[in-house]
């Protein structure tokens, strides 16, 4: 299951104004079971890239291929996790997780069983019948992860999923995400604006240039996991990536 992004370009047309180029000739290949993060200066089109891969937006030119087939609309082999407001407030936790199975037509008993398994995976078994408003931000994102996993996608697309959380919760969820990733062997394409987060999580970091976004650099991280944020190796990579982004922001 390889994800290949070829010559991707996207411009947004606004009436009476010149079109804004968000992405230009972007090339990227994501391998099986790989954890790839996308970083870049703000407004560089990170989220646009992810949305095109998810099939939520169409590219102006270029292609996204999944195992040789072009992606032009959302497909259940990929699941997206949004930053916030993604749970359905009228559904309890279990029924939120079962949503994907429900639209697929799974019988109620079966989808409850599967949903309960994924609920267990994100350690929220005791909250099956709670409603989203009763959960903390971190818990809600764990439910969102469980809901995405429940449709058994090969690829998880994550759009700043921990961006709205406080630092402690964020670190905890990063740890949990890695554990889930190692257990389920998913491929993860992860958009973030936090260098620290990207270095902590990723096999590779893709640094985009300022708008229009194209791949400026790809940084492979060989540090063994779990990574120690205070180690010199970690700090060095973080420094290096930070410099890349600053250069990118300056347009060098």
């Amino acid at each position: 299951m390889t994800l290949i992004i070829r010559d991707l370009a996207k411009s947004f047309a606004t009436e009476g104004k010149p079109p804004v180029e968000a992405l230009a000739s972007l090339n990227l290949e994501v391998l099986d079971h790989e954890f790839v993060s996308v970083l870049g200066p703000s407004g560089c089109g990170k989220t646009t890239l992810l949305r095109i891969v998810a099939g939520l937006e169409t590219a102006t030119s270029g292609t996204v291929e999944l195992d040789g087939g072009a992606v032009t609309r959302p497909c259940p082999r990929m699941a997206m996790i949004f930053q916030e407001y993604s749970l359905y407030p009228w559904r309890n936790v279990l029924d939120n997780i079962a949503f994907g199975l429900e639209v697929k037509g799974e019988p109620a008993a079966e989808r409850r069983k599967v949903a309960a398994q994924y609920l267990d995976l994100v350690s929220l078994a005791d909250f099956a019948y709670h409603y989203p408003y009763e959960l903390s931000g971190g818990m809600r994102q764990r439910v969102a992860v469980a809901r995405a996993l429940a449709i058994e996608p090969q690829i998880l697309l994550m759009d700043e999923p921990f961006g709205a959380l406080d630092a402690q919760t964020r670190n905890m969820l990063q740890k949990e995400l890695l554990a889930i990733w190692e257990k389920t062997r998913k491929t993860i394409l992860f958009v973030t604006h936090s260098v620290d987060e990207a270095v902590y999580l990723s096999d590779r970091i893709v640094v985009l240039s300022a708008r229009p976004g194209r791949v400026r650099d790809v940084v492979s991280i060989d540090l063994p996991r779990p990574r120690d944020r205070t180690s010199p190796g970690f700090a060095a990579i973080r420094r290096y990536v930070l410099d890349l982004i600053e250069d990118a922001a300056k347009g060098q």
Partner: protein
Amino acid sequence: MRPLRILLPILLVVGWEVAAALINNPFILPSLTTVIPVLAHPFSTEYTLGSGSLVENAAISLGRVTIGFFMAAIVAIPLGIVMGRSPWLRDFLDSTVELLRPIPPLAWVPLSLAWFKIGMASMAFIIFIGAFFPILLNTIDGVKSIKLTWIEVATTLGARERQVLSKVILPGSLPTIWTGLRVGFGIAWMCVVAAEWMPGTTRGLGYLILYAYNFGQTNVIIAGMVVIGVIGILIDFLFKSIESRWFFWRGLER
């Protein structure tokens, strides 16, 4: 808080009795002692001079309002959903809706008689007009308030267009639609009284109080008004309790 809430009604009742005694004219202000027996015998026709008991008339009015109200809901909810989803259709219809909306339902009475003649259809039409706009506008609002992320999540999880409608847009906008139904029913209930004043009507609470006026029975008029008010409160309470049971999540989206 509690004692203060019932203080004014008690004062009003006492003031009423005092005023009734002073005026001493049951046609202008009947004493409570002549109104209570009417209310205490809701199944009796003794006080209503052959125009049916309070309960019978209330049932007829409720039946009429229900028919007009359901017709309004059946038209306004689907139209509101489509208008909420389509900016194009909104642009197309908005000005017309805004033109028709401020016309009071009662202003439609003459046209209604011309179009539907005397009878049930005319009354249902007036009630329809009263309930239609609050339901329509709230439905549009509810659908517009659906978060884009909710829809995108559904499509990435494999939902088809129809499933997005039935599993996201409808449940997500239902609380607001419900508010529209509650407000719409309130207005419909006000309209039914006036609709029953149209010529040719022979039953209903609206008819009853006008009929009682012709016989100088102010106590029956007041009893009828009390019944109209109580039914209005009860139905509003019903809507509200369903709202707090089903839509407890409202305003708590995160």
